[in-house]
């Protein structure tokens, strides 16, 4: 399943094939739901445009 690939001798990351634990699981996800954060960011974007609209309309 896993494939070797060329890494330099200085690499800080050994090949994942030799790791017992999935390296992704070393990082915990933030507590907030990612989907709520997307909606929040889009709303922020609309708020930002709205601010410019308000400024330019006077």
């Amino acid at each position, binding site marked *: 399943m896993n494939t070797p690939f060329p890494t330099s001798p200085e690499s800080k990351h050994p090949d994942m*094939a030799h790791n017992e634990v999935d390296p992704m699981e070393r990082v915990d996800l933030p507590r907030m739901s990612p989907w709520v*954060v997307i909606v929040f960011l889009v709303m922020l974007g609309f708020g930002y445009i709205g601010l410019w609209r308000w400024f330019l309309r006077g």
Partner: protein
Amino acid sequence: MEEAQPSWWLIAAYLLLMMSIGIWGRKRVVSVEDMAVAGRNSGVWLIAFSVAATWINGTTLIGISALGADFGLDAYWSGGSFMLATIWIGYFIIPRLWETGVITIPELFGRYFGQRHRTVSLFLVILRDLGVTAGTIGALTVVTTAVLKISVLESLVLWLGVTSAYVFLGGMWAVMVTDAIQFFIILAGSIGLLIAGVAQAGGVSGLRNTFDPALLDIFGRAGVTQVLAWIVIGLAITGSYQGLIQRGFAASSALVARRGFLYGGVIASLWYITPPLIGMISRTIYGPDLVAEDAFVTLAFGVAGNQFASLIIVCVLAASMSTLSSTINTIASNFTLDLYARFVEPTASTVKQLWVYRINVLIVAGLAALIYSALPLLIELMWIGGRIMGASVAPALIGLVLFPSVRKAPTTVMAAMLIGGGIQAFWQTFGAIREVSSVVIIWDLDPILIGLPITIGILLIGTHIETRQSEDELATAA
């Protein structure tokens, strides 16, 4: 615009500075990993400025100014959504990807699912990145042929030549340091032009009196569905934009990568209102006869003296070359690690790998020139491959990072990439087009709004079925 006398010395000084950084970077490159991800040793602000500069290119300045002239404030979403998505992936995706230690996205798929997944994702990722490279050199060519009175061939050779030369020498080191410098040049040129444009239009109060109110609508001429599509395109494409993600791999730690993306994303999100505003001001000053694609350049030479106009040309050069260098470098890393190292010579020495990588840099630059010559629709060029990637690799990658169950569903991931990408390509070929503007196509229903939900659906249902089957098999075996 025709009367402008650009300062070649300023342009030459800029190009020399970029080349000297490439020469400096050459000393730091001793392996493929140095070329591709700068030895994984970069700090927060270098990543932040590099992320911001990568997202700002000639197409952004020319293309989104054109969209601003035609569609007003709506045009923000054609670029701003990518910046907001950058903040998001910086928070949720990049740190986990950093921990895997991969260099390319196809490599990640290969490690989790095997070689077939690596090949399919490689094809889809390159499709997008070559489109971006071609679109970026195209935008630069449009400006420089008009302003500097050089031919298309001269433009392609000069700008691609210098960019590929400093990437050839210094790899990601040169890319990131030049990016940081280019970011400040972009900032000075674009904000300076905005201020000069406002002054030319009679100040803010003058603009308020003369702006077409339709340009200020939140859902103006582009309409709700197209604005929604721009938002979705931004979110989807950013999710697997390898040239951007590799900035995260260049960080010295997962936390540094997260902060770099967060700061870079916020800076670029705020900046991205600049090109739509430049387009809107240009439209207001020069009226309805102005060709949208000329909005940026016309304003630059209409309001600025020769020296300032030259700074703006350098700004366009900086914006384009920061993106070009990034995409050229990232595709070269794919050609080297995902093709050469796999199929040609897996046991090549470090020195040979490095030379192959450098030759690939030159090959990618040549390919981009050929593609632009064949298909010169600027922003659409970026989005054709981008939509296909955004509806195939991006949701699969995000699923892979966020949900461990997806990592156990290779068949589903393959099906999602193939079906999602296929439907996207089909819809882009046969979907109904409402309008072909100077830089983009306005669709009746943007293809991404068809392809992405189908891919997400396949991932959700397929993963559920496939992982449940595996559990059943395990239970039976026990």
